[in-house]
């Protein structure tokens, strides 16, 4: 069974997690055209590669982001949505 690291609860087997799909930036609903919106809700960046994904640690109710290579299943990083790595760096330097 695959292991995944919850940023709050540590490394756990996959059975403790629920996959929440690819993280996608929502376009501005007020300014996007019907077609742009329809593409956003229906289409996916579905070719293999490194994706940002939502994952949920079920026992603790923690949502987080995993950067995962969907071709190799390698997880490059996991972090809370509110605390992406780039922000971390800024916080540390501040």
């Amino acid at each position, binding site marked *: *069974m*695959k292991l995944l690291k919850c940023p709050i609860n540590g490394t756990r087997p*996959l*059975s403790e997690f*629920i*996959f929440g799909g*690819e993280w996608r930036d929502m376009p501005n609903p007020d300014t996007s055209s019907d*077609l742009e919106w*329809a*593409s956003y809700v*229906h*289409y*996916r960046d*579905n*070719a*293999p590669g490194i*994706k940002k*994904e939502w994952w949920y640690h079920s026992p603790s109710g923690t949502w987080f982001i995993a950067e995962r290579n*969907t*071709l*190799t*299943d390698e997880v490059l990083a996991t972090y809370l949505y509110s605390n992406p790595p780039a922000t971390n760096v800024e916080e540390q330097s501040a």
Partner: protein
Amino acid sequence: MAYQLLKYALGGEYKEPRFFRDCQTPKKSYDAVIIGGGGHGLAAAYYLAKDHGITNVAVLEKGYIGGGNTGRNTTIVRSNYLTPDGVNFYDASVKLFEGLSTELDINLFYSNRGHFTLAHSESAMRTMRWRAEVNKHVGVKSRVVGTDEIAKACPQMDLSCSGKSPIQGALYHEPGSIARHDAVAWGYARGADSMGVEIFQNTEVQGIDIKDGKVQGVHTSRGYILTGKVLSAVAGFTPRICKMVDLKTPIVIHPLQACVSEPMKPWLDTILVSGSLHVYVSQSSRGELVMGSSLDPYEFHSTRSTFDFVEGLTSHIVDMFPFLSNVKIVRQWAGMADITPDFAPIMGMTPIKGFYLDAGWGTWGFKATPISGKTMAHTLANDKAHDLIHSFRLSRFEEYELTGEKGAASVGH
């Protein structure tokens, strides 16, 4: 049959010809190029040649023919879908399957076993009735049956599922069948090859040339090929091919796993599916139980196996058949399923002229092999989608016209 067998015994030298030629060097150009030497691609090639006289066709296969999901599925053929369009489409496929051994002159072991979709809850029973009603309307033999009829067809099953989720009834689909999946690919390959189609194995597509929104040719590991028509029939590799032409689709790839038991004397005569337990099982002509489950829970472009799958599957199988506790699983494997949001395929034309899509086959691709080949061949030949596949067009998503298959919550394979 006696004659066919005797000729092997009497003839000294083995005289069976090759199923298909060993093509190595592609021509400069083809009328059509089919990417993917699985059942679908080969069937499309076969019907292009047979129905439309288009024989200057190349089939490009990255690995070996039938090596993708054609050779990885659990070989179930059925048409008990939920929408009239779905039922009509798969029913046409069943009808083609029924005559296919004769047409292709290869024994596909197309075995009509009857198919039970078990319902363990009242809501599942509702869905069964819904499917049955639509099937009946379209003229497909499906009906809701009670536990007595299930017990008669499969007396060995514990209808209470070890007390854990008692079966309340089922959708019985009489035409439900199984077949030798590999042989379907081989038969179509031989048929297409004999009419002039060239099949290239170990041939990878590296790019597709588009100019002014129109297909110009295909870059392959065996060189560049000129063509105005390209059919992508690559299931789990669809996103990779679509990326080459910058075409967006809603497809997501999830592995779908299956496993097989050691052979035992046949006892299970029907095909059983349980949506709630995520199990489907039949017994092959070799005596093995062929079993599958639901999709893996997350996106992954690979065919690795997981232990969770086989743990979950066997625990449910043993709930249904406690006496199989010590029957052994020999092998597990996986395929990459190209899933669409409305559980129906994506077929037909695309915004790119000359680029045709046969994709989104999820967990239901094998059963559609003949009809997808036939309708896609028609679509390529006429540059117009076949009537049967109109509701499977790619543009349905932008149009918010998803097919109603999504309505059925219950899983079925």
